C-alpha cells in the first residue's frame, strides 16, 4: 500500500526521538523497498497503520471511521501526493533560502518559513527619493547606470563587478555593513558604491562624501566606514561630519555647499532612478540584483 511511503519519513523522524518508532521505521524501509520493486509489503505495517488510524477515529466518530476505512486508498494517495509535493517545495525552499536568503527565490519578497520575520527581504524604503518605481527585485537594472558618477575602486585584474546602493541612515544597509566592507575589499572585483539619501532634505552626508571623494579617494573609503558606524542620528549632523573630515585631514568647507556638488548629487539621484532601485541595500553582483540584507553566503556565491 502507498501508505508506507508516508510512514517512512514520519517514523524516521519520530525514531530520532523515541526508540519505540525505530522498529516501525525499519519496517517502513522494508515496505517501501518492496513497494518500489513492485512487490507486496509483507510486514503488515500498512494494515496496522490503517487499523490504528481508523480505530482512533471510530472511537470518536464511527461514521467518519467507516468513511476513512472505505476510502483509505484514496486518502493514502492524496496524502502521498501532498507529501511528495510538500517535500519538493520544502527542499526547493531550503535550497532557495541557502542560495538567495529567501525560500521563494532571489526575486521574491514573499513569506519564507526559514526567515519568518522576513528580515532578509526587508529594505529601507526609498519612495521619498526614488518614488514611482516598481518594488520588484527583478525590475532592477544597470543598463543605464553610470558608475563614473559614484565612488569607485577599479582593479586591474578584476573579474567581478559589484555595485552597492546604500545609505548611511538606512537600517538594513547598516545590517549588511560587514558584507559591504568585505565586498569593497574584494580583490577580484571592481566596486562602485552609490550613496542615496533616504530623505530628500538630508543631503549633507552625501555632499560631504562627494567632496571627500573628489579630494582624496582613499580618505573617502575611511569616511564611508566611519559614517556607517556612527549613530544614525548623527549622520546628517554637520558638526559631526566636520569632525570626521577633519580627522581624515580633508578640507571640504568650500566644496559641500558649492553648486557643482549640489548638481552632482542631483545627477547621482537621477541616474540611480534608472536602476529602479526602490530600497536599500540593493547590491548588484555581476549584474544580479540582491535586495535586502541577505546572509553573507548569498553575496559570496555570486562572485566568480
Amino acid at each position, binding site marked *: 500500500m502507498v501508505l508506507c511511503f508516508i510512514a517512512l519519513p514520519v517514523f524516521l523522524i519520530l525514531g530520532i526521538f523515541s526508540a519505540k518508532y525505530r522498529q516501525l521505521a525499519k519496517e517502513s524501509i522494508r515496505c517501501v523497498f518492496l513497494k518500489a520493486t513492485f512487490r507486496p509489503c509483507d510486514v*503488515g505495517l500498512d*494494515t*496496522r497503520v*490503517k*487499523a*490504528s488510524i*481508523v*480505530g*482512533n477515529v*471510530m*472511537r470518536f466518530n*464511527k461514521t467518519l*471511521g*467507516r468513511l476513512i*476505512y*472505505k476510502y483509505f486508498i484514496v486518502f493514502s494517495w492524496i496524502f502521498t501526493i501532498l507529501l511528495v509535493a510538500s517535500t519538493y517545495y520544502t527542499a526547493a525552499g531550503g535550497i532557495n533560502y541557502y542560495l538567495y536568503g529567501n525560500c521563494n527565490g532571489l526575486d521574491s519578497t514573499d513569506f519564507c518559513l526559514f526567515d519568518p520575520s522576513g528580515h532578509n527581504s526587508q529594505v529601507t524604503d526609498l519612495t521619498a527619493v526614488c518614488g514611482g518605481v516598481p518594488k520588484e527585485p527583478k525590475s532592477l537594472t544597470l543598463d543605464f547606470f553610470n558608475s563614473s558618477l559614484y565612488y569607485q575602486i577599479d582593479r586591474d585584474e578584476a573579474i567581478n563587478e559589484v555595485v552597492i546602493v546604500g545609505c548611511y541612515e538606512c537600517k538594513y544597509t547598516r545590517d549588511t555593513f560587514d558584507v559591504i566592507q568585505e565586498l569593497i575589499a574584494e580583490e577580484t572585483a571592481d566596486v562602485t558604491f552609490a550613496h542615496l539619501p533616504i530623505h530628500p532634505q538630508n543631503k549633507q552626508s552625501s555632499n560631504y562624501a562627494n567632496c571627500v571623494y573628489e579630494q582624496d579617494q582613499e580618505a573617502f573609503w575611511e569616511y564611508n566606514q566611519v559614517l556607517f558606524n556612527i549613530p544614525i542620528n548623527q549622520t546628517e549632523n554637520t558638526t559631526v561630519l566636520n569632525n570626521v573630515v577633519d580627522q581624515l585631514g580633508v578640507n571640504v568647507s568650500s566644496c559641500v555647499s558649492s553648486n557643482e556638488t549640489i548638481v552632482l548629487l542631483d545627477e547621482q539621484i537621477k541616474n540611480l532612478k534608472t536602476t529602479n532601485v526602490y530600497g536599500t541595500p540593493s547590491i548588484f553582483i555581476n549584474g544580479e540584483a540582491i535586495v535586502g540584507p541577505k546572509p553573507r553566503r548569498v553575496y559570496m556565491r555570486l562572485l566568480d
Partner: protein
Amino acid sequence: MMLFKKKSSAGDFPNLGVTYLDSACMSLRPKQVIDKISEYYLKYPACSGRSNHALSRKLDLELLEARKKIANFIGTKNPKEIIITKNTTEGMNLIANTIDFKKGDVVVTTDKEHNSNLIPWIKLVNEKGIKHIPIPSNEDNTFNLEAYKIILEEEKNIKLVSVVHVSNIDGVTNPLKEITQIAHEKNILVLADGAQATPHKQINVTELDVDFYAFSGHKMLGPSGIGVLYGKEALLKELPQFIVGGETVKESTYASYDVEDLPEKFEGGLQDYAGILGLGEACTYLQKKGLDSISSHEQKLNKIITDGLQEELDNGDLILIGPRDPSLRSGIFNVYSPTMDAHEIAQLLDKAYNVAVRSGMHCVHSWFNGRKINGSIRASLYVYNTEEEAHAFVKAMKEILRLQK
C-alpha cells in the same frame, strides 16, 4: 480512581478500563494473589531451605503449604510430585530432555499443539533421529480417537504420547483419560500440556492417570514466570536431572555430588518464592470459586458470543475454528475473516472499542500454516468477564465487519 472491578468476582480483579478477552494468553490476578506476592516481599523476603532464621523458617512453611495447595488443586496428595518450573514450556522441555530418547523412538502428539509441545520434539527429530507423528484431528477440530488408536496399533516404537489437554486455539478438550488408558495399555508414557485446562477445569491427575502434566501460573490467575510439572513419583525418581546446581544436590565434592530428593532434584537454583506462593493462592481462589462454576460461566459467555455472531458465522463473514457448539470450546471463541486481516480486526477492537483480544497464530503456527490461514482473532473468556462484555464484543465485531460493506 477505582482500582478493582466492581461488577465481576466481587471486585477482586484490577479495573483495567478495557474489556479484557485475552485470558488464554495471560489471565488477570485477583487481589488475593497480588497480596500474597506482596506478603512475601514485605514480611519474609528470605531464602528457603538453606538459612536458619525465623524468616527463612516462615518461608519454608509457606512454600510447603503452597506446594500442598497446588498438589491438591490437580488431584494428587503427594507434594513431591509437584516440580516448580518457569512455565508449561519448561515442564515439556524437562520431559523431552530427561527421557532417554533414542533413534527410531516415536513421539505422538495432536496436530494442533502449541509450540511448547511441538518444538521440543522437532528438535529431537533433528538431533536424535526420533520420529514425531501428529494425529490428524476430526473435521471440527476435535480429537480423532480412531486415528489415534490406529497409530498406536501400527507404530511399534512409541515412547511417549504428548498431547494438549485443552487446545488454546479452539478450547476443545481432548479425552485425556481415554488417551492415557489406550497408551498405558501399550506401556507408553503420557505427557499432557495442561496450560489451558487447569484454569478452567477441575483437574485430577490421579483419575486421569496421566504420567506427566505441565501447566503455567499466569493463565490461572497466578503470577507469570511460574509453572508446574506434575509427574508420578516413581517416574520422576527414575528420570535424570535436567537443570543442576544449587538446591539440586545434597552435597558435593570437587568430583562428585549426591542428587537431592524430589522435588528439589529438578528445581535448580533459587526459586521464585513469591511466584510459588502466588500460585498457591491462585489455586485456593479458583477452588473457592469452583472450577465447575467457572467453566459454566465461560460457556454461558461463549454462547452469548457465538449466538450473537451467528449471522456472520452463517454467511461466511467469520469462520469459526473448532466446533460450533460453544459448550465444546471452553472459554475460547476463535475466528478469522476471509477478507479482513486478523491483526487489523484486533487493532480496531482495541483502538475503537477498548476490547483486548489476541490475533495471529497463537503459537500454533503449524496448524495455521498447514491450512494456509494467516491468523485468527481469539477472544478468551474467564471468571472475571461479564455478559455485558460478551455483548460489547459482539457489537464491536459486527460493526468492524460492516466496515467492508
